[in-house]
């Protein structure tokens, strides 16, 4: 049955090729359903793989490698296109294809006005293919191929509306930031090959524990370079600036790529390479620190933004920060658990936000919304469920996963009280910005009376309801997730967290954030005007995202542009161009002198010949 696994890659690829070749000849909505069917098919095959894994004992579930095609075969190095089926890849694929399928269906409703409907679905299928390749790769080479391809799909989809300048610029920014990460990954792959002589996961991870000392320079360098890729893809500090801008893309793209799947690839990478990371405690501390700092950083920025999608984007960064905190302190399966619940509720929030934007005729500013609970009841309820899950309200999906993260931040192998305290702050912020957004959007009275919001069609609301159900009960999957994934993370322990006091504090922080937001924004109005004035400098810094974009602009973009301008004028115009021109001029001068001899007159040529002949004769005779 594992031999069917190639279908997971084949179906979305076939969808992409069919849609892009047939193009606009494809009947409009059929194209969307076709693409969805391809992803749905991949989901079913993944379920089959899951069933197959369950037929075996936990210890046998690892390392099922399917070689599809021997690509490079040579002495000392060979490269096969092969697929690795194990609990971790199947788990990721369930999220990718499952949530991906729902978002495909939703997009049929969301994009049906768009002229380039088919192209959109072709790109979505390309993304699912790339992400599946990333997850299924059995070696670092195809991991990087998939890694770059999801970057490409992300670029194409962020810049989908090519007539919007901001979208094109955002796409370019995302691509450049991701390439920074790709470079790190490629160098890491070289180093891995140097040390292990192979890029194959199974062999590398088997050899890793004996190949290095803990905190060995080499393993530190490899893990840190891999981490550059992970941080760039997952929008962690300091490579995060592309993610908020990526919200220029269509909303289903934000839900699929920039919330549920692609941006969590960094977490997957660390979890996949846990054998390497367990050898590098220093890197683990770094991951946890960056994760928790990003969680606070993004959460604080999210508290003051007014664009509905940007708030959710910052919240995504913040939640991925939690995931990195979890894998950083050594509880990989809790990180993956949060990845799953986050995929549910964040996809839900994005899709519900898309429904709001759709209903408000492309309005994204929450100051112009308000009172939408009457006009859009389904969206209202599902958004509320998503918000509760995100904020970690007890018994929702987000509650279980985030609670486990906060507790392990203290009790896990690399945890300490500082991580715990910072995580608590971030949890409080999450509750606050989530419900600020919720009240702004749905409560109070409409702030733009001329708008006539309407509920979205059922092709959009049904995926919302499915995701809402998963966001409510997904938390119950926690024990299953840990049990299922435990063979992959053999060396890592979950740590015990039975400190009731700390749990109470964590729940209180979440509820505190929610209650603060309720107190301030319940009426749908901003009652913080006086506070904003008192804390004006802080507020300004938050509103401008800590000026990170401006700092990068000043430190990197402007100097690079300056160097480029200098080189253009000095090196290019006065150096290269000048010398090439001079060579040409000199050659022309010389040839002008020589060309006198080519008079075109036959008699002169004959005379020259005779003169030459005579000269040679004279030489022969007299010398």
């Amino acid at each position: 049955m594992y031999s069917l696994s190639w279908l997971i890659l084949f179906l979305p690829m076939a969808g992409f090729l069919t849609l892009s070749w047939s193009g606009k000849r494809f009947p409009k909505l059929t194209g969307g359903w076709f693409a969805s069917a391809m992803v749905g098919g991949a989901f079913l095959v993944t379920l089959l793989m899951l069933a197959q894994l369950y037929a075996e004992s936990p210890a046998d579930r690892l390392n099922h490698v399917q070689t599809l095609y021997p690509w490079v075969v040579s002495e000392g190095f060979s490269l096969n296109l092969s697929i690795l089926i194990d609990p971790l890849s199947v788990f990721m694929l369930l999220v990718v294809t499952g949530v991906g399928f729902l978002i495909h269906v939703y997009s049929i409703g969301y994009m049906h006005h768009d002229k380039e409907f088919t192209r959109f679905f072709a790109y979505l299928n390309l993304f699912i293919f790339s992400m599946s390749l990333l997850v299924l790769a059995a070696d670092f080479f195809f991991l990087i191929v998939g890694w770059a391809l999801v970057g490409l799909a992300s670029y194409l989809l962020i810049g989908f509306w090519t007539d919007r300048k901001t979208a094109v610029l955002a796409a370019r920014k995302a691509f450049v930031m991701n390439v920074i990460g790709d470079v790190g990954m490629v160098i890491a792959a070289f180093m891995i090959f140097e040390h292990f002589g192979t890029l194959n996961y199974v062999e590398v991870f088997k050899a890793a524990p004996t190949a290095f000392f803990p905190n060995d320079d080499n393993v530190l360098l490899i893990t840190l370079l891999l981490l550059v890729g992970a941080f760039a893809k997952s929008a962690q500090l300091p490579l995060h600036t592309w993610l908020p801008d990526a919200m220029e893309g269509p909303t289903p793209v934000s839900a699929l790529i920039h919330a549920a799947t692609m941006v969590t690839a960094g977490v997957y990478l660390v979890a996949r390479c846990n054998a390497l990371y367990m050898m590098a405690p220093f890197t683990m501390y770094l991951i946890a620190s960056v994760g928790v700092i990003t969680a606070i950083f993004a959460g604080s920025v999210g508290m003051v933004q007014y664009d509905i999608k940007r708030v959710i984007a910052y919240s995504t960064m913040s939640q991925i920060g939690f995931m990195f905190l979890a894998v950083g302190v050594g509880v990989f399966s809790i990180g993956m658990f949060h990845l799953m619940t986050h995929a549910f509720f964040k996809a839900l929030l994005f899709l519900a936000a898309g429904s709001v934007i759709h209903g408000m005729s492309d309005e994204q500013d929450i100051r112009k919304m308000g009172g939408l609970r009457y006009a859009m009841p389904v969206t209202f309820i599902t958004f509320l469920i998503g918000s509760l899950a995100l904020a970690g309200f007890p018994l929702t999906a987000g509650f279980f996963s985030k609670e486990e993260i906060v507790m392990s931040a203290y009790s896990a192998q690399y945890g300490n009280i500082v991580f715990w305290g910072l995580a608590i702050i971030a949890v409080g912020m999450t509750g606050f910005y989530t419900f600020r957004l919720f009240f702004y959007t749905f409560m109070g009275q409409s702030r733009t009376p001329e708008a006539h919001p309407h509920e979205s069609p059922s092709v959009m609301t049904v995926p919302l309801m499915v995701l809402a159900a998963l966001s409510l009960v997904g938390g119950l999957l926690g024990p299953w997730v840990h049990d299922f994934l435990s063979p992959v993370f053999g060396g890592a322990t979950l740590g015990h967290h039975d400190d009731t006091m700390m749990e109470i504090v964590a729940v209180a922080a979440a509820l505190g954030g929610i209650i603060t937001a309720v107190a301030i924004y319940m009426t749908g109005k901003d009652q913080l005007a006086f506070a904003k004035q008192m804390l004006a400098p802080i507020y300004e810094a938050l509103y401008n995202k800590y000026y990170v974009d401006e700092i990068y602009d000043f430190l990197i973009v402007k100097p690079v542009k300056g160097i480029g301008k200098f080189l253009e004028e000095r090196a290019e115009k006065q150096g290269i161009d000048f010398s090439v021109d001079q060579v040409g001029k000199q050659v022309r001068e010389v040839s002008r002198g020589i060309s006198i001899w080519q008079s075109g007159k036959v008699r002169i040529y004959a005379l020259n010949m005779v003169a030459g002949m005579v000269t040679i004769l004279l030489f022969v005779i007299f010398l």
Partner: protein
Amino acid sequence: MGAEFVLFVSAAVFSIGALGFVVRKNPLVMFMSVELMLNAVNFLLVGYSNFLNSLDGQIFALIIMTVAAAEVVVGLAIILTIFRTRHELDADHIDVLKG
């Protein structure tokens, strides 16, 4: 008739041909000068063939005559075409390949 005589006549005819080719401007006359030069060589070849008791020189002379005949056909055709297009024949005016 000694070898010196053959050499002298041949050199004289060749020089006349060469001089004619360089001095005259009419392509037809220049063409005839070329024939002079060729025949000077022929004369030398036949003469020495006789002195050396070998047929090689005569065979060469025959080959040169054949080639000269073929060359005349081509050359005259070219001159004729030039005259048809330019309505004049002056070797100094035909200098389109001037560098």
